[in-house]
């Protein structure tokens, strides 16, 4: 049993089981998610600054599918709320995006520790 408020991120072993034992693929996926998440959060902040609330909603929708693999509970719930929020609540949206940033920062820190970085498949020199 877990304490209230304790992060419920997915375990590496659960993902490896889901992807039929392919640990390398799972670690690669975690690295890609970390990079994608950073870009999506930056885009979300830019959209908020530009008061483009429908873009924030679209970005939340696009990120939700990926978050479902790593943070299927809390993280996905925040994104679902952002996606569905009415455009006439910009202050609430700002708070939700802040909460999402904090959650994703913790998640990516967890991924960096729990999922070893795979070797690069391509290299540029």
């Amino acid at each position, binding site marked *: 049993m877990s304490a209230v408020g304790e992060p419920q991120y997915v375990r590496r072993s659960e993902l490896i089981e889901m*992807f039929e034992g392919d640990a390398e693929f799972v670690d690669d996926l975690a690295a890609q998610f970390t*990079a994608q998440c950073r870009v999506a959060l930056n885009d979300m902040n830019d959209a908020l600054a530009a008061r483009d609330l429908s873009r924030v909603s679209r970005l939340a929708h696009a990120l939700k*599918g990926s978050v*479902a693999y790593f943070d299927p509970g809390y993280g996905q719930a925040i994104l679902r709320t952002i996606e569905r929020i009415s455009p006439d609540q910009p202050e609430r949206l700002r708070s939700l995006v802040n909460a999402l940033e904090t959650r994703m920062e913790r998640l990516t820190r967890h991924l960096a520790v729990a999922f070893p970085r795979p070797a690069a*498949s*391509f290299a540029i020199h």
Partner: protein
Amino acid sequence: MTIPDMAVTPVHHIAMVSCLNCRSYFDAVAAPFCGCIARERTFTCPHCAGCACNASYGQRESFAAGIPPVLNERRRRERAEGIGRLQATKPGMVQRPFALIVDDDPLVLVVAERAVRAAGYSTIVTRSPEEAFVIAEALVPDLVLTDALMPLLDGRELCRRLKNSELTKNVKVIVMSALYRGIIHRNRAFKEFSVDEFLSKPIKPAVLRDALDRLLPRVAQARLHFSELQVAS
């Protein structure tokens, strides 16, 4: 007196990359694109003549994220010409079974492409549903796997368009959704949009493979037969 055209003066850049197949280094700026039927072709290694089209969508995107501007420009041109090239391709030239995968989330594309390839399909992935319709009409895939809610064109609407087109009416379509998960949405997808299968996200490889095997049993049988041959030999 004429002024020399400075724009045509070549500026030499090199970008050494290591081949995914033979690991040798080569200059990607000078390397030609491969001859694969792909949304975006990759460079041909001068040492082994291999390309990176078999790399996953994620690997290709990671590679593209780190390339220098001179290569990025080549990639931009290749992307711009890609649709026209595919439209000029005859459906008979595509390696079958062939699946077209559409999602605006790159990570879902990575997962779906891996599962579909593992089931024995060749794949083209795209993030644009409108582009997907053009590719589907040109290449007539055996299967289209699409997200439901996407900007510009809903995946279920894409399915309806495919089913209404004389060219693609027999293409099997699987729609995936994280939003429309309830039974009402599921029934509506089957009745109103004529989808062949409706899956909830996150997509699990085993669930997707079961759906593929149900919709295209011939492919599943061929895969089974091939694995039996491998065991026997």
